[in-house]
């Protein structure tokens, strides 16, 4: 039975995911833009420095999200992480090489090209794959009675690259690129700033187009039975449309955010203001997905054994304890973030750089 605490934790998990997509989102975006904007050593060092002091703390949001999902909805965690095995492992390897390349690049000038390549790849690939994972979860995957992915490898991996999921991946990539460009504009001056600032409306526009396309594919897919032959398997969506209205409201928030980002970026409003609107888009996107699935956590495209929020949830006793820990921990960690971002506020200057 669905309890209040189940719903609270369902929302909280998506709050953490939103936090992760905003904070590590701009880190990933900066990494994905790195080879295109970092045309010389000074620019490269500036870009690395733009995320240098904060990327590690930002990435902890992912660990928090993983831990919270494990604690509050273990079956959903088990189903997705084991079901998307190779994809998750790819993300993992990317994050490992990104972390190591960022910290080592400055100490190891001999292998600069190698570290630059790893930094780019380690940022760009997860930026794409996170969206794909969200898209696949929204569509549902075929599961057995225990909630295990029913397809065998390698079909289980290829299956994840369904058109809607790929479109979601592109929306996510565009969102991270947009956040990255917004952040670079905030943190830098001169040529780098101007180039990044000029990219923002382009990314916003591209994201609007992709998001509209994904929405169309979503509504078409809802009319197709996922079990109806190959067409169904590729396009069909096993949604239970109980909160589609709420989902649609958040979709409007996301679209409005993209439009406003486009407008403000074009008009040349303050860089920080543009970044904040772009961050709000993440909230819209995450909760569009959340309420597109509710009351399922992972819909079953065979329609038999979905992992529902109510079934997957830990007992209320655990959820209440976890809530208590969160109430204590969240303000403290936001305070840490505040201290850290304040210490490194302002544009990056030549004096900050070490190559």
């Amino acid at each position, binding site marked *: 039975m669905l309890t209040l605490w189940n719903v609270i934790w369902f929302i909280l998990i998506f709050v953490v995911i939103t936090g992760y997509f905003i904070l590590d989102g701009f880190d990933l975006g900066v990494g994905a833009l790195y080879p295109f904007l970092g045309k010389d050593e000074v620019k490269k060092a500036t870009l690395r420095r733009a995320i*240098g*002091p*904060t990327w*590690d*703390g930002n990435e*902890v949001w992912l*660990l*928090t999200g*993983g*831990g*919270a*999902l*494990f*604690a509050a*909805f*273990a079956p959903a*965690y*088990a189903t*997705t*992480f*084991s*079901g998307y*095995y190779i994809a*998750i*492992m790819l993300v*993992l390897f990317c*994050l*490992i*090489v990104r*972390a*190591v390349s960022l*910290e*080592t690049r400055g*100490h190891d000038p001999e292998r600069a090209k190698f570290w630059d390549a790893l930094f780019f790849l380690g940022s760009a690939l997860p930026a794409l794959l996170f969206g794909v994972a969200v898209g696949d979860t929204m569509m549902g995957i075929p599961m*057995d*009675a*225990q909630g*295990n*992915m029913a397809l065998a*490898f390698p079909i*289980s991996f290829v299956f994840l690259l369904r058109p809607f999921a790929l479109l979601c991946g592109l929306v996510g990539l565009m969102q991270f690129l947009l956040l990255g460009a917004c952040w670079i504009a905030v943190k830098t001056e001169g040529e780098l700033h101007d180039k990044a600032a000029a990219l923002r409306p382009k990314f916003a526009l591209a994201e609007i187009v992709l998001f509209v396309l994904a929405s169309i594919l979503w509504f078409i897919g809802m009319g197709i039975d996922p079990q109806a032959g190959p067409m169904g398997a590729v396009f069909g969506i096993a949604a239970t449309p109980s909160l589609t209205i709420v989902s649609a409201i958040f979709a409007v928030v996301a679209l409005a955010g993209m439009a406003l980002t486009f407008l403000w970026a074009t008009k040349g409003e303050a860089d920080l203001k543009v970044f904040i609107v772009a961050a709000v888009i993440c909230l819209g996107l995450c909760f569009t997905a959340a309420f597109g699935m509710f009351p399922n956590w992972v819909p079953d495209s065979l329609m038999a054994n979905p992992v529902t929020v109510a079934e997957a949830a*830990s*007992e209320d*006793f*655990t959820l209440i*304890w*976890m809530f208590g*820990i*969160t109430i*204590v*921990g*969240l303000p*403290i*960690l936001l305070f*840490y973030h505040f*201290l*850290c971002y304040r*210490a*490194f506020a302002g544009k990056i200057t030549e004096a*900050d750089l070490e190559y």
Partner: protein
Amino acid sequence: MDVEILARLQFAFTAAYHFLFVPTNVGLGLIVALMQTRYYKTRKPEDLAVAKWWVKFFTITFAMGVATGITMEFSFGTNWANYARFVGDIFGAPLAAEALLAFFMESTFLGVLLLGRGKVSEKFMTAAAWLVWAGSTFSCLWILIANSWMQTPGGYAIEGGKAVLTDFFGAAFNPSTLARFTHTVDAIIIMGSFLAIAIGAYNLRNKKNEYFGKRQIQVGTIVALVAVILMLPFSHMQATVVADEQPEKLAAMEGQYEDGPADLYLFGWVDEANQTVNGIKLMDGGTSLLAWGDPTKETIGLNTASKNIEQRIAEVRSGEYLRNGEQFYQTVGSNEESYAPATTAPVQITFQSYHLMVALYGCIVLWLIFAFIVRGKINKGQEASSGLLKALYFAPLFPILAIEAGWFVAEFGRQPWIVWNELLMVDAISPAVDAPQLIITMVLFLAVYALLLFILFKNAFRIIKEGPEQVEVIEGEVA
């Protein structure tokens, strides 16, 4: 190949690898904080150079620790899905709390420590250094809570095929949490201080930066002395908990087959066919004496342990795992053999890991004496012998190997259980992940991790060679 074995190999490899960096980082975190505090107090340029050098060295190992730590958290979902389903109510909470309460502290202030010099006050820098260390130690606490719960579960009940939390503090402070935390963190501090000693010895021997070298020896030896002495009560506490809570594991650690008082071996080889140990026996009933203070105290041998575990396996598989009307374990594994797990821990490896760990403690004590001889010489303004300094280069090998061996004892000794007496290893894997997928990722792990280790060592040795910035030290001011 068997999915269970592959999944275990992968976890063992990635965890052992991650566990190289955890002790290094958490141990060095203390050294970094001490060096930064020293500069905060003296404001001497030579102390600033030392503090700066340590932060630089710390960064490269820290990034490795963070990066390889994500693997561990993810692996419960990717490789151990049934385990996640079984323990989610309990095990997930400490992981989430670790991130929320400890990891944010550690990583945020690491950012300040790395790049904040000149941007924030030295007071803030010093606070940041201590907060990084506190955060990482706190993070150890949460992880060891989770690990201890797998060894000696508490504060739970089995309902609807999974473990359900009934008492938060009973689960968090289960019988082995405190002993495991003190034992592990103390070992980690020995590791940090021995690294400082080795780096100090290098600088003294090559006369590169004698002020830096002296500081490392002076601080390292004191920290190490305290930690090495504290290790005695802490390891005694740990042994007592194992003897009381996991007698089946104790039997494997000493290779004891028959019931009776537990003997104590210095070295040995377990002859599994004849159920004896060939080796140097220190004392009949010696382990009983150490654990309980009574050499005649009887404990179970492996033969009884095997019967106990067999009986317990039958109990847990008789219906406790029911989920959706099907036996939990029936979805697991593809061959019939994996349904019949071993009924004891692998005796030889548990025995050898345990005795290796104890022997390494002996080496640690010996090397600490070497370090004190060096300390005595340099405090008198004399030159320490080159050979002794060279021997100190190898100091960090002993604590890190002891730490890995100790962890082998804990985890091999727990077999065949993943959660002691509640969930079998073989029933805990991800049914959706088959052997080819595990082999692909294992190859990737081997390749990526080997490359990273190679590069890490290259960079670490380069930074050690470079040493801190050269600062004029006025003779006589060296304390």
